[in-house]
């Protein structure tokens, strides 16, 4: 169980060597969780930024810290969560004992959390507050298959869940690099309102430049409403920039304990 005296949190992000905004949401969520005083210590590490995952091996050396919750701030399971993070952090399984007394608990990525559907819906409502859902198509943008991960699968699962709620006129997956393409949004939808939510962790080059270009709106333009081809197009920031992701990170840490009672006793 998370304790403010002996539990630490390590949030793992991808980061970028070219995009200054890539790590910003992860750092913001860490700052928010730190402010709440739930954990004895909160740190971040990144694959492509500092501190590195290897640096994190030297974190949490306070003898009072008995457990470290490792939460990947990734949209889905895949190459990073299954290969890179365990390798770089030298995790040997769901629970890894360090220094004799400290257990590193490898939690599910944030994108796996059950609240993700509600987060997407909330994002859609925020960007298009006046749009009646019955007259609105909701497009969830995924990366596509360029990366060796399951982000497209995760995006598909979310769309199915939202579609099952039967609130929106249509709910569709669109991708940047494979059909159905985000650039075909006009053909894919028939409603007056179209809401587009990027299913990404951060607002990077994709959501600042690539997706706006594919939608036909100005590159780097403000999020929000755009009138195009007689339709109202609402373009949201990346789902991972939602401040509520801080709650999701905490929930994923809590979920580790409720799902893996056997490992707890092994610590």
């Amino acid at each position, binding site marked *: 169980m998370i304790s403010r005296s002996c539990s630490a949190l390590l949030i793992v992000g991808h980061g970028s060597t070219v995009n200054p905004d890539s790590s910003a949401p992860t750092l913001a969520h860490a700052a928010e969780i730190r402010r709440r005083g739930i954990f004895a210590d909160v740190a971040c*590490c990144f694959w*492509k930024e500092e501190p*590195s995952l290897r640096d994190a091996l030297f974190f949490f050396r306070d003898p009072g810290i008995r457990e470290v919750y490792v939460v990947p701030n990734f949209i889905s399971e895949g190459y990073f969560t299954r290969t890179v993070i365990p390798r770089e952090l030298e995790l040997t399984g769901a629970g890894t004992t360090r220094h004799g007394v400290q257990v590193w608990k490898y939690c599910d990525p944030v994108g796996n959390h059950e609240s993700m559907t509600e987060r997407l819906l909330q994002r859609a409502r925020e960007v298009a507050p006046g749009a009646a859902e019955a007259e609105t198509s909701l497009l969830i943008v995924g990366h596509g298959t360029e990366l060796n991960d399951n982000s497209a699968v995760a995006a598909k699962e979310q769309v199915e869940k939202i579609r099952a709620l039967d609130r929106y006129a249509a709910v569709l997956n669109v991708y940047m690099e494979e059909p159905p393409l985000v650039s075909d949004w006009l053909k894919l939808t028939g409603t007056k309102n179209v809401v587009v939510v990027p299913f990404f962790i951060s607002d990077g080059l994709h959501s600042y430049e690539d997706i706006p270009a594919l939608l036909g709106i100005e590159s780097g333009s403000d999020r929000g409403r755009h009138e195009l081809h007689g339709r109202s197009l609402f373009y949201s920031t990346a789902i991972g920039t939602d401040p509520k992701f801080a709650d999701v990170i905490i929930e994923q840490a809590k979920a580790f304990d409720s799902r893996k009672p056997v490992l707890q006793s092994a610590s």
Partner: protein
Amino acid sequence: MSSLAQEVALGKSLAAGLWCIGQIAIEPQENGRFALNHREDAGRNDLIAHTQPEKAAEIARFDDAGKYRPLKTAPNLRRGWRLVLESVAELRVALDLFYPGRLDVFVAWENNALSATPLRETLARQTGMYRVAAKIGEEEANTLVGNFCASDGGCLRTIMWRRDENGTTPSTLLPAEKFDPRYDQTGLGETVIPLLCQEACNLLVAEARKSVQGQDRRGQ
């Protein structure tokens, strides 16, 4: 919340007179406060003051030309700011954003708990797009490290790792002080909390990959 070991260690380092880290000067204030600024901004009275430790991330993100700094230990920290912090705890948070991870690595070193990883081991561990980086030749690795990690224009860290498990020097092009934790890598000659590098960073691995790919292309 109890004082963490790192905060205690930081307090001890300050008490021992280590008032500089990288390009940052730490100045003790009244009531346990600290004021931070760029070492080259000492004496300036036109600095823009901030009080939130998280502001450090924003200051560290871009250089004076507005260019993104993917390597926070590069010698191009922005100038013109002053950050006033309330406590050692806030100081630790800020320094961790200016120089991510360096404080923990320094504390591990002070406690004789720092293990360095040879460059060859780091490269051999890579998978996916970086797997090819392990193919870098000895001469190319020597040149790459000599250029990329140089304190003058490259990185202000003190290299603790060796090129391989035989203890080969990371680069014959770097001066001996590049491997000396007591040396002020800025060249200003003060007593500093060193920015220790226990393992090649992802940026260097990426450069090794580029070097190998460039060589492959030249060989075709």
